[in-house]
């Protein structure tokens, strides 16, 4: 030992018996006996409020079913599930983006743009005498490529130029819409291989069409990725505290880029499935869809502050919106009521989540 070290010595180990209780009293708060009302509240709050969300969905289905009994039917399920696919796919990508603390206003426009350009490719190939399956395949790849490219551009501008996601994706909304109209001349694309329609509309096993099955598959994969993988955990970490994520060595920029690419890719998947349902691509298909996807994610419990959200919640959110849309049509209610109802439910859902978080003992 150096002389200085000996001179100064080392502090003796301190008694550490004091440390065994860190705010145990505060943890005990959650273990107190509860009134039945509080117990019901806790039940609703289970799974980050997913129990309450599923109950709201069931309530909507039951109420519409009482008003219009033929809502509970196979025909309305087919319509509802087909309707839900587009919002659900966009909202899954949106959920990842929102969890990172971002927002993607371009998903609707990117969906329409990639679908229209993919459709133009298919139309030209079919007109040139190409094999229909080749034409469809090339159109699909083109769509997916354009969707992913749009997401890549979003992500790179957000992370490299440090412009807020709101502005970047608002710009992409405009650019994607303009590009689509330039290429299509603003008109709906028709004259596509008729085989497309069998992809979009054939019910497999009677109840599930290909778009619905693809959506379920995407939801399961995305849900597992978000909750079980390192990518999912880091998505939450980036949105919860970006600075902390950086300092523990997470490649935050690259992570954000990948999340926007995923959202763009899913927008293209949604667009292609929509094209296959109608065997045409509408330049209007994406209008307002960015807001629907955000509403579905938010109804599903995603926080625009980042760090919170789940795929199960988002799927329930998308189903609530589809149930209202189809249900109110079947019940003969003017479709404008649907948008009013969704607006109210979105705000109520966020309020419900705030109440839940307040009573779960969390602090800011």
């Amino acid at each position, binding site marked *: 030992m150096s002389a200085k070290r000996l001179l100064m010595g080392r502090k003796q180990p301190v008694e550490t018996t*004091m440390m065994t209780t860190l*705010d145990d009293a505060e943890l005990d708060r959650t273990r107190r006996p509860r009134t039945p009302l509080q117990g019901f509240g806790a039940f609703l709050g289970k799974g980050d409020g997913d129990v309450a969300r599923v109950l709201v969905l069931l309530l909507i289905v039951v109420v519409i079913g009482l008003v219009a009994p033929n809502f509970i039917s196979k025909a309305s399920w087919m319509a509802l599930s087909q309707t839900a696919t587009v919002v659900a796919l966009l909202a899954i990508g949106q959920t990842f983006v929102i969890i990172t603390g971002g927002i993607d206003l371009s998903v609707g426009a990117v969906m329409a743009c990639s679908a229209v350009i993919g459709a133009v490719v298919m139309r030209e190939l079919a007109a040139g005498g190409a094999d229909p399956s080749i034409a469809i395949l090339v159109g699909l790849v083109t769509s997916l490529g354009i969707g992913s490219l749009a997401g890549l551009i979003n992500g790179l501008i957000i992370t490299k130029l440090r412009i807020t996601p709101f502005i970047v994706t608002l710009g992409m909304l405009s650019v994607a819409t303009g590009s689509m109209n330039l290429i299509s001349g603003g008109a709906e694309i028709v004259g596509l291989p008729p085989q497309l329609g069998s992809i979009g509309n054939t019910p497999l096993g009677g109840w599930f069409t290909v778009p619905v099955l693809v959506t379920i598959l995407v939801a399961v994969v995305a849900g597992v990725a978000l909750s*079980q993988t*390192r990518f999912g955990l880091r998505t*939450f970490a980036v949105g919860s*505290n970006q600075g902390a994520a950086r300092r523990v*060595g997470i490649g935050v920029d690259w992570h954000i880029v990948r999340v926007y690419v995923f959202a763009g890719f899913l927008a293209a998947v949604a667009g292609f499935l929509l094209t296959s349902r109608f065997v045409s691509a509408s330049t209007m298909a994406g209008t307002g869809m960015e807001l629907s996807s955000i509403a579905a994610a938010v109804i599903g419990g995603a926080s625009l502050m980042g*760090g*919170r959200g789940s795929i199960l919640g988002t799927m329930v959110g998308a189903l609530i919106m589809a149930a209202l849309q189809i249900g109110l049509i079947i019940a003969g209610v003017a479709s404008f009521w649907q948008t009013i109802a969704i607006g109210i439910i979105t705000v109520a859902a966020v309020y419900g989540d705030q109440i839940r978080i307040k009573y779960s003992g969390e602090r800011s």
Partner: protein
Amino acid sequence: MTTIDPSTADVVLRVTGVTKHYGHVQALRGVDMEVRRGEVVGLVGDNGAGKSTLIGVLSGATTPTEGAVEFEGEPVSLSSPSHARDLGIETVYQDLALALDLPIWANLHLGREQRRPGLLGALGFLDKKAMIASAEEELRTTRIRIGSVDARTSALSGGQRQAIAVARATARGSKLVLMDEPTAALGVEQQHRVGELVRHVADRDVPVILISHNLPQVRELCDRVLVMYRGRIVAELDPAIEGVESMIRWITGAALESER
């Protein structure tokens, strides 16, 4: 056995002639320091004296303009916080750097998540069971008691969050712990507990560099106190001998003036 000078063998970190310029601003003007096994070194100084820049250099966040850093006898160039962490240099940041929306176990493993063995691991699947078990083990060895490591970190009090940040920095073979104002936001009782944690780390032979404005606490916890003034270390004080008054005279530069 070859004879090794124990004073050198004990040195974990050696900093020689480190400077840092930001344009015309000289944040560090040639810092030399050594940190030895198991000691708590206090780093004090006024705002702008260069403490945070120095911690930035040691934690890999700041690249020095000149100078050398030797860690465990090897010259190193700390290129990023994750590089510093890979070497065993852990930092407890003033803001704690916790993701409050994540469960406690995830914060303890953030950036070093364990994956499942085999194909699932290659696909990125997390080994949550193993991480929860090791999180519980880490909190046990650090003697921190927290209900469930599966709870959201936002459910914890300020003191508990601090304890999690310290536990993350001291777990899994860390070799040097840097703490930037670990008690600035805490009440008296919680400050005391963090102080115990600091001593606990040092007792396991891991040296700690502690930045603090709380001079009585620095006196109580540290084996040595280094005073920074205008980008240099101007004094090394023995807290057993020097009181708070004397530290203040060095921090404000008054002691330097009277020495001239």
